[in-house]
């Protein structure tokens, strides 16, 4: 009885969609109530969702298929990042030096820090290659990882963890290091935490959102160019 009930519910085309949105709203309420950085809505809703699936013994694939609409909207949403960029075009042009230097320094730091720490931890080449694209958007990162000999499914996990973490720590980092300019905040979020960071940047403001959107494109392409230059040292 219980099994048939669960499989009937989980078999609904809207089960995953409803579960994700419902848990996200609960997570937003928790965040509003307790205000701890750890209660990041994306993190909390993800954890709650995994708990629900494990407890009810629903396979990930069933959930994924019924939440497909959410992932499906990600490409058109990425396309729409052009809107805040267009609105802030003048600001973008006026700050070209900060944009170029910020994103380039950040991307180089990302690759070098992963290389250095990977070697320090004695990780094998394929694991370092897996982590190298962790700060860029999933669709580009998967290709970079594969090209460098990484484990693509783990790269996807690393990218998502990076995004959630960036989303979570941004405001604290900006406070500690006195990063106050909206342009700098946007560049920092987009370069370190790709589209998930950009979702945070859009919450902070339109300038932050526009700069973060630009960073996704530039950091992504820069990583595609730079990783093959260092991947030879991995093996």
């Amino acid at each position: 009885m219980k099994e048939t009930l669960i499989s009937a519910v989980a078999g609904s085309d809207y089960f995953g969609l409803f579960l994700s949105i419902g848990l996200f709203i609960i997570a937003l309420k928790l965040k509003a109530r307790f205000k701890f950085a750890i209660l990041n809505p994306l993190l909390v809703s993800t954890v709650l969702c995994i708990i629900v699936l494990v407890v009810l013994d629903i396979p990930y694939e069933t959930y994924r298929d019924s939440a497909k609409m959410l992932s499906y909207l990600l490409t058109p949403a990425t396309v729409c990042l052009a809107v805040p960029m267009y609105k802030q075009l003048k600001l973008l042009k006026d700050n070209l030096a900060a944009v170029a230097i910020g994103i380039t320094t950040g991307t180089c730091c990302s690759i070098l820090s992963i290389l250095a720490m990977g070697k320090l931890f004695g990780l094998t080449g394929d694991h370092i290659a897996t982590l190298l694209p962790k700060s860029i958007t999933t669709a580009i990162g998967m290709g970079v990882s594969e090209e460098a000999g990484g484990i693509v499914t783990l790269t996807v996990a690393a990218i998502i963890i990076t995004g959630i973490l960036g989303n979570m720590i941004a405001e604290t980092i900006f406070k500690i290091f006195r990063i106050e300019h909206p342009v700098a905040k946007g560049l920092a979020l987009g370069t370190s935490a790709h589209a998930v960071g950009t979702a945070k940047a859009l919450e902070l403001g339109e300038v932050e959102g526009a700069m973060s959107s630009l960073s996704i494109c530039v950091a992504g392409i820069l990583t595609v160019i730079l990783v093959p230059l260092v991947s030879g040292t991995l093996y």
Partner: protein
Amino acid sequence: MKYVKEVAWIMAFTFIGEALNKLLPLPIPAGVYGLVLLLAGLITGVVKLEDVETTGGFLLDTMTLMFIPAAVGIMSVTDILIPVLVPYLVIIISSTVIVMTVTGIAASLILRRSEKKEYKEAAE
């Protein structure tokens, strides 16, 4: 019919992006092609801001939600993630903090310098 028109524009750019992603041998995702083309469309005036603004705003406002299915997907790789979880987490956390801080500080320094210059120029 405002939304119909907006959705049509956004889907058109999404579709062209997807097509370019399939046709061109570059590792650039469909969304990034679509983003660059929509930006070019807005700059050249082919698309007007009000043709995409409301629906675009809706999609950006709900974007965080769209990452949940991929994030929940981590549960399907736990068997290979657990053995490397500790070094992975240490590297991801430190590297993300480093990248965010360095990018933010580098950009702040340049912004401060150019703002000083503008201020001086305005004073002169």
